[in-house]
């Protein structure tokens, strides 16, 4: 199975996402990457939390699990530790993963369990109607930040890196083919991998921030993103404004399923005098 449409539950289409939503672009990038892995659908398990991004598994013809808000990584940890041979992909959003699920996010990264997390960052709670998330940029408006967000936002990729993730990357949906190559690298990585996919939400975010045009929003992401290498050469102020992209972490460190298997193996060794 290599074509992305082979992995879709075509009978579940059309999808529920709003016109102009970027989530379908991320889904397509995931499926192109998965299609190159040589896996069968039965080998793959896709787990999500709650929100727009988290409806993704409903459209993917693998073992799929739509869990409670923020808790996708906890269910995924159970699936992966019960069946380490399954390829477990977690699909989540900025609010799901870094607000209500923030603790699970950092601990799954610390544990370095072999999960691939695709985090759709659209700077907003889309499904619940446009409330501020921990990723809403300062100054931008949301239904619960009508006068502009006064809290600073998380740098989600940096958060994952600091917590111990062994692969961390970020890209926007303006470059979908770069995105799918990063997702493929994340899928191939044995350990906790995060790909932060910057995706537009014209309906809930754009509408409140004078960016309701979907094409304009994708164009905004394209113009404001810059490779981390180029960002390093920018003056401080410009660098802060930029959406940096690329691979931030690609390291090797003991992976949790493997470490647990070693423990079991060690305990099974006969005791010698």
């Amino acid at each position, binding site marked *: 199975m290599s074509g992305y449409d082979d992995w879709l539950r075509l009978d*579940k289409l059309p999808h529920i996402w709003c016109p102009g939503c970027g989530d379908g672009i991320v889904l397509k990038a995931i499926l192109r990457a998965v299609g190159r892995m040589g896996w069968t*659908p*039965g*080998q793959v*398990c896709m*787990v999500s939390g709650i929100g727009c991004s988290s409806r993704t*598994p*409903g459209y993917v*013809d*693998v*073992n*799929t*699990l*739509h*869990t*409670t808000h923020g*808790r996708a*990584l*906890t*269910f*995924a*940890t*159970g*699936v*992966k*530790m*019960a*069946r380490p*041979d*399954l390829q477990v992909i977690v699909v989540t959003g900025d609010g799901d993963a870094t607000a209500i699920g923030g*603790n*699970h996010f950092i*601990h799954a990264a610390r544990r370095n369990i072999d999960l691939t997390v695709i985090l759709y960052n659209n700077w907003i709670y889309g499904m619940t109607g446009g409330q501020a998330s921990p990723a809403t940029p300062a100054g931008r408006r949301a239904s619960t930040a009508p006068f502009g967000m006064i809290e600073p936002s998380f740098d989600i990729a940096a958060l994952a890196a600091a917590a111990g993730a062994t692969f961390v990357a970020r890209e926007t949906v303006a470059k979908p083919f770069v995105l799918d190559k990063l997702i493929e690298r994340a899928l191939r990585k044995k350990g906790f991998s995060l790909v932060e996919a910057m995706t537009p939400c014209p309906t809930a975010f754009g509408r409140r921030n004078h960016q309701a045009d979907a094409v304009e929003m994708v164009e905004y992401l394209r113009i404001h993103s810059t490779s981390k290498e180029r960002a390093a050469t920018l003056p401080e102020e410009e660098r802060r404004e930029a959406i940096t992209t690329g691979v931030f972490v690609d390291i090797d460190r003991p992976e949790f399923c493997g470490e*647990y298997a070693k*423990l*079991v193996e060690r*305990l*099974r060794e006969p005791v010698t005098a």
Partner: protein
Amino acid sequence: MMTGNEACADGALAAGLTFFAGYPITPSSEIAEVLAERLPRRGGVFLQMEDEIAAMGAIIGASLAGRKTMTATSGPGFSLKQENIGFACMAEIPCVVVNVQRGGPSTGLPTMPAQGDVMQARWGTHGDHPAIVLAPNSVAETYDLTVRAFNLSEACRTPVILLLDEIIAHVTEKVALPPRIDVVTRAGPDAPPDRFLPYRHTPDGVPPMAAYGVDGYRFHVTGLAHDETGFPTNDPREIDALNRRLAAKIDRRAAEITDVVRESLDDAEVVVFAYGCVSRAARQAVREARAEGIAAGLLRPRTLWPFPEAAVRAAGARAKAVVVPEMNLGQMAHEVEWALRGACPVVPFARVDGLAIRPSQILAEIRAAA
């Protein structure tokens, strides 16, 4: 010789537990500690998760991947697990949740006994849902009921709650382990992968269950209202059918699940209804009352839910009163009163100071009611 917590861990292993996830909390922690030692030696998985919610999520995920799973906690942790317990009800995931009760509300009394989670065990999560809750009163019975919790969970495809209390969890008693136990494992899929319906409305209400990634089966699981295929639905008929099937699959088995122990009830004029640690004091009080010539009897439920309504009504039909001593402010007394529907008065006796109810206190209530 072992404690209730140790017997719980032992019973779980005997019933086929291969996956435990938990978060430390007194007075349940020894269950996790014993399993941390024993599960990896058997090739099973022990996980100490970052919090109670994570532990509940992990056992649900592992159960979907085909494992028999358990978590153990206490009052505050049980509160945190409630949303995911609801998910397990809705998505029909077998798993066992042990709650070693401590005094509450809030942080309450971490090292002192209480029975304040009786209603939380029934109604802690939102929405209408079935509940099976077992409450042992000895170390040996903790072993037996832990095994039963797994068996009921697998047979009914639902979470089962084992409600201990601090005294039963920590008392050390002699236990003769049964030479053999019956072990139930969930029914496997009854159709090939392309025709398998993970939420089929079977006549007995329990859909056969596949495991993720086993034999080519793959399916969708969600906490949203769903149809027989497992996908979300907004069709009122489908939603209604789902909710009613979930309730009915336990209701129709209620008589078979309900488990009560009767002592001296045949001619009892004063019935004591007691469970868990309090039932031990109650039994002593009933014996002392009999020695004084008072026709007292004990009705001891080992399943709190489904509530043993018929047994309560039968015992209360010819009684002068039903005394309900419990270590909360009358959570079960209300349920007993409802079951009796005025057949006889209910005398609640509450102790919520962190100390055990004494036989003499129950005896005084029996004397007053006789």
